[in-house]
């Protein structure tokens, strides 16, 4: 009798089922809804209406601006932090890193509610600075995702390369721009991917900050709330396309650096 043996193929079955149920099928449903109308007929109407409606285009641009600003602010804050934690001889560096990561362990809603209270105390009326509040909220939320990959990359940076640069006549500025920065690119790319993409779509933060402006996420939500699956799906699909393009632009060229990215996560 042939004995039954597990092969790698069979071990893959649960994962394949999972992927089909939760990734492929939902995507197929979204694509189906996006290109059909209420009676189930194929149509490009949803696509056209997105690009002809000034509101939706405006929301897309606004979301992009917020995501870019949040990513830039995160990068500006996270790089020095990661650099200091990774390169200095601080004995307590892991503890400090932990402090930056710690907020991730607290429930997201709780964090934002707390932040909202603090901002209310500082600003009085939150609705006066919707853009600023959104940026603050998202920066607060996504900072750890920027710090971690940067920290990991900078930690792996070979000290002797920096010494070699100094030895060859580079002053501290030249060492940074010619060696440290180029060599930390994988971390930067990974940090950007992990911050920009969620910043593009997250609308819970805005919602909770009593923000009246719409971004992409809230736009989709508003269509779904009134059971307009077709337009909602189309917007989701467009957002999906935008994110794909951004991912290709930032991560496409260095596939083999994947191991350097966010290894800590």
């Amino acid at each position, binding site marked *: 009798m042939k004995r039954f043996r597990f092969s790698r193929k069979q071990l893959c079955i649960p994962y394949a089922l999972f992927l089909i149920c939760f990734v492929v099928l939902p995507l197929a449903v979204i694509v189906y809804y996006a290109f059909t109308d209420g009676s189930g007929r194929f149509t490009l109407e949803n696509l056209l209406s997105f690009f002809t409606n000034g509101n939706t285009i405006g929301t897309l641009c606004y979301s992009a601006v917020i995501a870019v600003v949040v990513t830039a602010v995160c990068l500006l804050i996270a790089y020095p932090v990661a650099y200091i934690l990774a390169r200095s001889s601080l004995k307590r560096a892991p503890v400090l890193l932990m402090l930056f990561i710690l907020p991730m362990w607290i429930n997201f809603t709780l964090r934002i509610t707390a932040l909202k209270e603090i901002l209310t105390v500082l600003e009085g009326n939150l609705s006066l600075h919707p853009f600023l509040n959104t940026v603050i909220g998202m920066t607060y939320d996504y900072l750890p995702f920027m710090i971690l990959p940067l920290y990991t990359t900078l930690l792996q940076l*070979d000290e*002797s*390369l920096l*010494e*070699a*640069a*100094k*030895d*060859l*006549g*580079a*002053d501290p500025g*030249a060492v940074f721009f*010619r*060696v440290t920065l*180029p*060599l930390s*690119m994988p971390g930067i790319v990974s940090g950007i991917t992990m911050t920009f993409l969620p910043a593009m779509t997250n609308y819970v933060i805005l919602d909770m900050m009593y923000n009246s402006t719409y971004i992409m996420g809230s736009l989709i939500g508003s269509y779904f709330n009134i059971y307009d699956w077709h337009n909602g799906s189309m917007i989701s699909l467009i957002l999906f396309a935008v994110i794909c393009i951004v991912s290709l632009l930032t991560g496409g060229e260095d596939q083999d650096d994947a191991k350097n990215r966010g290894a800590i996560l």
Partner: protein
Amino acid sequence: MEEKNIIELRNIKKVFDDTVVVEDFNLEVKKGEFVTFLGPSGCGKTTTLRMIAGFEFPTEGEILLNGEDISHLPPNLRPINTVFQRYALFPHMNVYDNVAFGLNLKHLPKSVINEKVKNVLEVVDLEGFEKRQISTLSGGQQQRIAIARAIVNEPDILLLDEPLGALDLKMRKEMQLELKSMHERLGITFIYVTHDQEEALTMSDKVVVMSDGMIQQIGTPEEIYNEPKNAFVADFIGESNIFEGKMAASMTVSFCGAEFPCVDNVPKDTRVDVVVRPEDVVITRPVDGQIRGVVDSAVFKGMYYEITAILPDENEVVIQTTRNVRPGEEIGMRIGPDEIHVMPAGVLMNVFDGTITKEGRAAFAGGEYECDLTQLFDGSVQNGPCSVVTEGGEEINLEGIEVTVEVSVKAVSMSDEQRDYRADGNIISFIYKGNHYNYTVRTATEEDFVLDEDDLWNEGDHVSLMIPKEQIILKRK
């Protein structure tokens, strides 16, 4: 005309976290010299090199480059370039950009940079490699690029930190010769760090032998080999027989149970170490020898036989000879006066600062040992765990008093068992001296015990130290 010193190190001392890594380092290097720092790992040679490069600053002392003090100048302002141990080539740049890195920083015109990079790649035999990525190069090629990247800047001094360590034997031999000829062609001063004595002797004009942060000897390769200054150098460079001896007269030394004429004028009765190279021992008929012994082993080594002979006093003599003698055969041995190197003896007595504990033990070097307290006051009698009564009848409590503790090298023995009160440490070095090993054990308190033992232990072994009560000599401070 006296040539000027290109670089001078004066009384350099370097301390890392309370540990002295380099001490009392004085060196003068002339323009165009090939100087090698040679020593076992952890001897401070790389730290010294890094101080010359500017990656570390000396705790004390000064470094003069062409007469100017550069001790605290950052590396980018020193006309000195380094070839790193693991090359440290920039992985995000191709060969051309790596080599041109220093030139780009000087903002030289593009055409000049192109020309220089092309020339230097010819010097290292890698013409046409400009566009290659670093990761596609072999170890030997990376090595050459690292050298090219340094010498293209035309530094006053080129520092090389064990540059051949990562290469295989054949490649290493080739690169040794190539570096040597490169040095002659370029006329740049080379300072080279290695733990490989053969490499040092092959390439250098001047060798600086280091151990434990201190210079043991500076000299030409011939001087280092033929006239080692102490037992460490003799043991580290080439093979040697090291014996303990004593001067029988000013030009006669006594060791291995016989007296030998020698060329060193040392006062009578001085304790000395005697070094004899294996190839300098001549085998004779038993009746013609200055000493006699029985052949214990004879191993064919290609060019010669390596003979080990045992003397009546149990000393071992290693001999390299082309004569074939058989184990068990009795032979005579002669050593010419010129071949006997007499050196001051190493440590004979360990001296520590200590105190007396309330139990009456001597506490020193991280341990506590039973000792005879009556030594502290002539004619006294012990009347309590830590008190004595003097001749005059006065009772003295000794708790906490400071004493000098002396222990002979022969009195200390080692054990791998850890016990309360015993000092313990790691063996940091040892030398074979004819019929016993001479060990140095460093304790956790950074104090060194020197001791003689018959058995072979390994470097790095963790041992505890035993000292018999009667062998501890106490002196009041």
